[in-house]
């Protein structure tokens, strides 16, 4: 009889194996309180050493919006600028910030918590999920600021605003999926951590945070100032139709703002949902496949 058979008879499992996906997911679900508490405690500790404390949760996105507003609103020309520009910009910056922070923090979740991973036995998936939850909790007050600003600048409150609830929930799941994929990749190849800020910056400048892709690259009819008109770059507009971040941003703006260019594009809902399902399902599977690998020293 081999040792492997002996071990199986005694009910032992091979070290370095992983639980079935089903058991794994139910173990992660059991840790939901851990995920939430970890996210909350980390936010508090992040700000403990600052004299302004928790106020930074609100101050940071405000300063962000102010800087971008100054740079893109005053210094850079009005070409391709949509109506309600300041609101457009604020929504873009805040929502994108949540995406970018989730991505980088989620990617680092395993490599930055190696002491915890090496000491205690628990499903590692909880860590990237906690990182995204932490960013989500930080995102909520910025949503409140956004809404207050919209009301203060005279935008009408309407029932469409409620759409941001399912939208941001969907965005949260999407970001979780992306964080899971990236967290595993960073374990295999640590250098990725250093690349992520550049990747998110690339998305920042190409996604249409501070300009509208449709009005910048869409076709324009001839006008007195521009007698020839502009044929546009239809391929670019089509491409951004399939870009998930652009979809999430557009839906958010359409839900919150009124006027030309802010009609709700229902196909975006379909695309964004499909992106989320694909990225999240793949992320869970992909992360689980290397469960035994996390925390290893080799």
């Amino acid at each position, binding site marked *: 009889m081999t040792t492997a058979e002996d071990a199986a008879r005694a009910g032992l499992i091979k070290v370095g194996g992983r639980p079935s996906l089903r058991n794994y997911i139910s173990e992660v679900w059991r840790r939901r309180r851990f995920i939430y508490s970890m996210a909350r405690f980390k936010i508090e500790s992040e700000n403990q050493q600052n004299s302004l404390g928790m106020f930074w949760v609100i101050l940071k996105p405000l300063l962000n919006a102010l800087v971008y507003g100054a740079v893109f609103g005053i210094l850079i020309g009005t070409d391709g600028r949509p109506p309600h520009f300041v609101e457009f910009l604020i929504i873009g910056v805040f929502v994108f910030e949540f995406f970018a922070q989730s991505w980088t923090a989620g990617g680092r979740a395993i490599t930055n918590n190696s002491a915890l991973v090496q*000491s205690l*036995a628990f499903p590692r998936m909880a860590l990237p999920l906690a990182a995204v939850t932490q960013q989500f909790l930080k995102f909520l007050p910025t949503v409140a600021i956004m809404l207050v600003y919209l009301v203060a600048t005279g935008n009408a409150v309407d029932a469409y605003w409620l759409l941001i609830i399912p939208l941001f929930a969907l965005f949260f799941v999407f970001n979780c999926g992306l964080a899971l994929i990236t967290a595993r990749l960073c374990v295999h190849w640590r250098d990725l951590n250093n690349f992520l800020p550049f990747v998110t910056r690339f998305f920042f400048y190409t996604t249409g945070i501070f300009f509208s892709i449709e009005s910048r690259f869409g076709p324009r009819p001839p006008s007195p100032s521009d007698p020839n008109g502009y044929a546009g770059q239809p391929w670019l507009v089509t491409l951004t139709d399939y870009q998930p971040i652009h979809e999430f941003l557009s839906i958010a703006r359409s839900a919150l703002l009124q006027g030309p260019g802010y009609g709700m594009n229902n196909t975006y809902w379909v695309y964004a949902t499909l992106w989320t399902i694909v990225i999240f399902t793949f992320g869970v599977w992909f992360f689980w496949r290397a469960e035994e690998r996390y925390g290893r020293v080799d």
Partner: protein
Amino acid sequence: MSTDPSPTPVAPAAAGRKPVVIVDDVHVEYKVFATGKRPTAADRRTLKLRGRGKQMRTVHALKGVSFTAFQNDSIGVIGTNGSGKSTLMRTIAGLTPTSRGAIYSQSRPSLLGVGAALLKDLSGERNIILGGLAMGFSIEEIEARYDDVVAFAGLEKYIDLPMRAYSSGMTARLKFAIATMATHEILIVDEALAVGDRTFRQRSEARIREIRDNAGTVFLVSHSMKSIMDTCSRVIWLDQGTLIMDGDPLEVIQAYNKAQDK
């Protein structure tokens, strides 16, 4: 893995007791550059990179170790520095992959080593809560155990400080207290008690005996022969990655001391 029946790891004397960990002919080899840089995938394929080829070294940390740990065992692991003790413990915990051979275990062990705090920016209190939640306790169960954990670690006055402000002894005490909140099936203590003071050492040794008596299995790596004599029912002696002796604590320790004095 092993089809070779000769080095049967199940000792006949232990018949009837339930095996918890089976270590079967485990080899661990590291490939490292002498400079300390991690080899990249390309380096592994072509081991003769210019200038680096000579510096590439294989460290054979474990050379065919086999034994079986049973329920109610507390196993002391002794050996000189670099004999492979920590590598063996990390391999049992699944943190270091085996090059050859396999390890079978009943559950995923907790490994307490020296060094880093769990979450250094958070207070001791929050480390207890998060550690407990991670191990699968509910918040009510943690609340019920909280005072015991704090008292055990002896940190009543410092529990609201972030863990980065703790001394290494305090860190070790809190980590031990958190990890032993759960009545573990398998607990590995890798010199984690060495930095503790005498009171804590006695307390933790009592806790280890308690775990052992509750059908748990404990591995204790230590250079303190007294700790090992006080807590262990069995001792394994490793030297240069090979298992030299496995048996009664007194016999093994005497043989080890004799070899050291030579």
